[in-house]
C-alpha cells in the first residue's frame, strides 16, 4: 500500500530531477526498514575499514613480539595477542580488505559471466540454452564447497584460484536468475516496440532487457555475497589459498583453533566474529533489498 502511494507521489505532479528522485527513493528504502538501514551502515563501515583500516591500526599486523605472546585482551591490545605476539585487533582490521577483495572479485566474476550466459540462454534459447543448462546442472550436481576444494586442489593453491573457484560455484545462481528474468521479458511489449523500430537483437538485450533484470540480480548479488565470504573463509580455514603469516579471517580462526581447548579464546573469537558480522551484514542487506524488489517473497 505504502509502495503504491509512494510510487504515485513520485510519478505524479511535477517531476523532480533524477538525482532528487533517487535521493527520495534512497531515503524511503532506508527509513522503511530500520534493519536495512543498519545493514547499510554496517556495510559502509566495512568498506571504510577495508579502505583505510591498514593505515589506522595501532600495531603492525605482522610484527611479532615473543615476550607478549598469547596475552588476553587489554588496553594496549584490544583483542589480545596471538601465539607469536602479534596484535589480533590489527590483524582483524587489516584482514577486512583481503576478505572483501576475494569475495567481491569472485562475486563480480560470477555476476558478469552468469548474467551474460543466462541472458543469452534466456533470450535466444536453442542449443546454447541446452548446453549452458547442462553445464550449470553439472556444477550444481556437486556439493559446492567440495567442488571448490577440488578446483583449488587441481588449479593450484593460490588466492587467485580461490577467487576463481568461488566464482565458478556461484555462477549457476546468477545464470539461472538472469535466464529466468530475460526469458519472461523477451517478448514484452517494450521489446517488440524496440524490435519494430529497428534495434538490433544484441542492442535490445543489452540496453532494453538487461537493465530491467538488474533489481532481482542485485538482490541475488547481495544474498550471495555473504555466502561467498563464508566459502572463501572456509577454504582458507582448511589451509587453501591464503598462506601464513597473511592476515585473513579464515586462517586466523584456523590458527586460533589450536588454542581454544586450552582456553585462549580471543585468537579465534575476534576474527570469527568479524567474519560473522560481514556475512550477517550482507544477508540483512540482501533480505532488505528483496523485500523492496519483491514484497511477495518476504518471509
Amino acid at each position: 500500500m505504502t509502495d503504491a502511494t509512494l510510487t504515485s507521489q513520485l510519478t505524479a505532479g511535477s517531476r523532480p530531477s533524477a538525482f532528487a528522485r533517487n535521493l527520495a527513493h534512497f531515503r524511503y528504502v532506508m527509513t522503511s526498514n530500520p534493519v536495512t538501514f543498519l545493514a547499510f551502515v554496517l556495510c559502509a563501515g566495512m568498506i571504510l575499514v577495508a579502505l583505510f583500516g591498514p593505515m589506522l591500526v595501532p600495531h603492525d599486523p605482522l610484527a611479532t613480539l615473543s615476550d607478549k605472546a598469547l596475552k588476553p585482551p587489554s588496553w594496549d591490545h584490544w583483542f589480545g595477542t596471538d601465539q607469536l605476539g602479534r596484535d589480533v585487533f590489527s590483524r582483524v582490521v587489516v584482514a577486512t580488505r583481503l576478505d572483501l577483495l576475494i569475495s567481491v572479485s569472485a562475486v563480480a566474476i560470477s555476476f558478469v559471466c552468469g548474467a551474460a550466459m543466462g541472458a543469452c540462454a534466456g533470450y535466444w534459447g536453442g542449443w546454447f540454452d541446452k548446453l549452458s543448462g547442462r553445464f550449470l546442472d553439472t556444477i550444481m550436481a556437486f556439493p559446492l564447497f567440495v567442488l571448490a576444494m577440488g578446483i583449488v586442489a587441481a588449479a593450484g593453491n593460490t588466492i587467485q584460484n580461490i577467487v576463481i573457484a568461488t566464482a565458478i560455484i556461484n555462477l549457476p545462481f546468477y545464470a539461472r536468475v538472469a535466464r529466468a528474468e530475460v526469458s519472461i521479458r523477451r517478448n514484452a511489449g517494450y521489446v517488440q516496440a524496440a524490435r519494430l523500430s529497428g534495434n538490433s537483437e544484441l542492442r535490445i538485450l543489452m540496453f532494453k532487457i538487461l537493465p530491467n533484470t538488474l533489481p532481482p540480480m542485485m538482490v541475488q548479488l547481495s544474498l550471495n555475497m555473504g555466502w561467498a565470504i563464508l566459502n572463501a573463509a572456509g577454504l582458507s580455514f582448511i589451509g587453501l589459498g591464503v598462506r601464513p603469516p597473511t592476515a585473513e579471517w579464515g586462517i586466523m580462526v584456523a590458527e586460533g583453533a589450536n588454542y581454544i581447548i586450552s582456553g585462549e579464546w580471543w585468537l579465534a573469537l575476534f576474527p570469527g566474529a568479524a567474519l560473522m558480522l560481514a556475512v550477517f551484514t550482507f544477508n540483512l542487506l540482501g533480505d532488505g533489498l528483496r523485500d523492496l524488489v519483491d514484497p511477495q517473497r518476504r518471509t
Partner: protein
Amino acid sequence: MGQLTIILARVLQAVPTIFGIVVVTFLLTRALPGDPAAYFAGASATPESIAEIRVKLGLDQSLPLQFVAYLQDLATGNLGQSISTGQPVATELLRRLPASLELTLFALLLSVAVAIPLGVLAAVKQDTWIDQVCRFIVTAGVSLPTFFTGLLLVYVFYFLLGIAPAPLGRLDMLHIAPPQVTGFLVLDGLIAREWATAWSAFKQLLLPGITLALFTLAPLARMTRAAMLQALASEYLRTARAAGLSSTRVLMVYAFRNAMLPIITTLGMVFSFTLGANVLVEKVFAWPGIGSFAIEALVVSDYAAVQGFVLSMAVLFVLLNLVIDTVYTLIDPRVRIEG
C-alpha cells in the same frame, strides 16, 4: 504413468548427471599445472622415471583414450593410490565413510527435528514472539561460519563448563570400538550392548552434530515457515476449516502435508551444504571421516585422494537427491516427469 515408471525414469535421468560429474573430475585431474607425471614422480625423479610414470599413468595416450581408461578404472572401483597413506583411495574412503555419514545423518535428523516444528509454529503463530525467535535463528544461522560455531561450542561446553568431551575424534580413548555392524559407533555400541561405549560415542557426536545442525537449521526452518504460510492461506484449507474439521487435523493433514513438498526439495539443497560443511566440522572436531582425509590429502598435495573425495561426494549427493525425488514422488501423487 505408474509411480514405479516415474521413479525408474528419474533414476535414468541421474545417468547423464553422473556422466557429467565423471567428466568434470577427469578434467580436473588433467588440469594439474605442469606435468602430472613429474608431479606424481616426486621431487627427486630422473627424466627416465618420469617417462616411465607417464606410460604407467597412460599420460602418453590421447585425451579421449585417457578418458576411456579413467572410465575403466572407475568401473572396477579403482580411484588410484593415495600417496600419503599408500593405500588405494577407494579403500581409504570406504573405511572413513561411516564416520562422515554418522555425523551428517545425525546432524540432519537433529536439524529436521528442530527446524520443522519451529517453522510450523512460526507460521501458525505468525508475528508473535515465536515467529520473531524463528526469524532471528534463521538470519543468524545462515551467517554463522560452521567452523566458528564449532569452536565456540568447544570453548563453552568443553573448556568453560567441562560437560563435553575433548573434541578429538569419535570415541574416548578409554573405550574400545564395538564390533562393526553398521559402522555407526553409537548404533554398534547399542547392538553390542556396550552401553558405556555407546554413550561415550554419542557424547562425542553431540557437539559436531549440533554444529552442523545449526548450519542446516536456517534454510529448513525458513522454508517450512514459508510453505506453511502458503498452505494456511490456501482455499482448500479454508474449505477444510469451513467443513468443521478439527484444527489439529486441518493443520497436520491438510496444511502440513502440502507444505512438506517444498520442504523436501529444500532438503536436497541442504544436503549439498551439509556435505561441504562436514569437511570444516570434521577438521574442528578431529573427526576421522572422509572430510578430514581430504584435508590431509590437500595439505600434502595427494592428488588422487582429493579427486576420489570430490567424485565420491558428488555421487553421494546425486544418490541422495535421487532418494529425495523418489520420496517426493511417493508423497505427491500429482508429480509427473514433465512437472
